[in-house]
């Protein structure tokens, strides 16, 4: 696993301008998106009942979660691109577990580094501002846990649909579909009506992967959080089973 990470890091490090540029663009988007939400708060003091600080928190979480999820979805897409081209046999016969090849062989180190940089600076900022004072260890761990479950939900969504390449041998545009659906994570859950929220929770729990953390901070471990965890677990386990089952049907010809 570490060897895969090392190789990806070396590959990314050779193109410094690309990496520096990627950081610049991410920070640019970050700044303008903050200004965009600021437009709403000129006239109202909440969005869907969530105060300004929670909306900014939701947005920051969404950016950071996207960076971490995309680090791995990039690798997943690369794996299935090889499946599509019929080049995956070399990795199937190696002693390395398949999940390591799937998640780490093509990991996007630019995203990963930016995730650590932004994540750490954000936590330092929260600490300096005193927002973390008086927060219990259990509470903080739960938030971090929900964050990583959100990342897993995003990854499992991509894995379950990309796995169809094993039987169709076609290159699926799942990374594109995922990035479009991922935009919905920036919408506060409170803006959805209850029926839509229930349906989306069951079908696409990733839509609420960030909102659920805010829900937890505001209202504690309530029914929506429990329901989300339930559907998230189903999706994560389901995607692992789908991957395993469809891999067994793979005829290795590519498409």
């Amino acid at each position: 696993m570490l060897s895969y990470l090392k190789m990806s890091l070396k590959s990314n490090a050779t193109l410094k301008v690309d990496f520096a540029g990627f950081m610049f663009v991410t920070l640019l988007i970050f700044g303008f998106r903050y200004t965009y939400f600021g437009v709403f708060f000129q006239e109202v003091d909440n969005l869907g009942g969530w105060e300004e600080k929670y909306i900014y928190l939701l947005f920051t979480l969404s950016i950071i979660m996207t960076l971490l999820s995309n680090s791995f979805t990039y690798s997943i897409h690369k794996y299935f691109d090889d499946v599509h081209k019929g080049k995956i046999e070399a990795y199937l016969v190696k002693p390395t577990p398949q999940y390591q090849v799937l998640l780490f062989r093509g990991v996007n180190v630019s995203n990963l580094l930016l995730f650590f940089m932004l994540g750490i600076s954000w936590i330092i900022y929260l600490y300096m501002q005193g927002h973390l004072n008086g927060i219990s260890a259990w509470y903080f761990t739960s938030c971090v846990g929900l964050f990583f479950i959100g990342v897993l939900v995003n990854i499992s969504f991509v894995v379950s649909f990309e796995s169809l390449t094993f039987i169709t041998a076609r290159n699926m545009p799942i990374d594109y579909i995922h990035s479009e659906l991922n935009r919905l994570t920036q919408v506060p859950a409170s803006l959805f009506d209850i029926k839509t929220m229930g349906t989306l929770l069951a079908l696409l729990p990733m839509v609420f992967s960030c909102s659920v953390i805010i829900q937890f901070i505001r209202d504690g471990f309530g029914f929506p959080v429990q329901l989300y965890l339930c559907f998230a677990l189903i999706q994560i386990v389901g995607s692992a089973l789908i991957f395993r089952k469809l891999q067994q049907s793979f005829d290795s010809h590519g498409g």
Partner: protein
Amino acid sequence: MSSMKCKINLFNLVPYCKNAYKEVYIDRGMLVTDFFLATIIPYIIQFMLWSWFFNSAELNEFNGYQYKTLMVYYVFVIAFNRLNNGYGIVEYYSSIAHSGSLSSLACKPISLANQRLADFIGGSALYCLPVVIAYFVHVYIAQVDLLSAVIGLAKLFIVMLFSQILCFYVSYFFAIFTLVLYRPHFLLNLLSAFQIIFGGVLIPYNFWPEYLHMIMKLNPFYFIIAAPVEVIIGTYNEGILHYCMITLAYIVVLRVITSVLENHLVKRSSILGG
């Protein structure tokens, strides 16, 4: 002689358009996915946020936009954002430059820029559909009379053509830099970020803080996405002629810059593929 040459060149470009059109048409699965995801999801987000905003603040108008006008603006602006999408131009240029096939394409009697322009317009033809459908729905709901609707349709095609050509040259300008940067990721991210921010996809230019108005209204991305939409929905105060003149000026300037830059960078780079 030069007009004759121009006619021949234009005629020779048609197969590029046709092939690009067919390529998009054949991959209908992706086309449908694109139509739904790239247009409906961004619209749902804007709709949810602005509906809450107007209801909650009890406003009739915000920065010159009524709720309905703003929703119409988003329908068009999101459809235009998909229509004028130069992502493929940068990606393709990067792939041919680094697979070593740039030289074989560049030595053809039609310049590489013109080949790609024809390909871009042909490939975008089907993406005009959401814009045209949105226009008919808009005309029907607003109960516009027939003459105004026909004039509006003519305006729509003019602004679509101008914005397409401008989008091509802006994207081609970005694409050329793959000769220096080797990978297209940064340029692709930058291009799509500029389209969304400066093109007015997030919000109309006058919603940004006042110190940003000038940048938001004079940059080329505004003339690719937001300005054509404002011409159609009638919030572009200077009129269609003004829009066409500025867009044309941008096209001419970018055509010259890309031509000089491409010549310079192609000479500098050692394209052996890789």
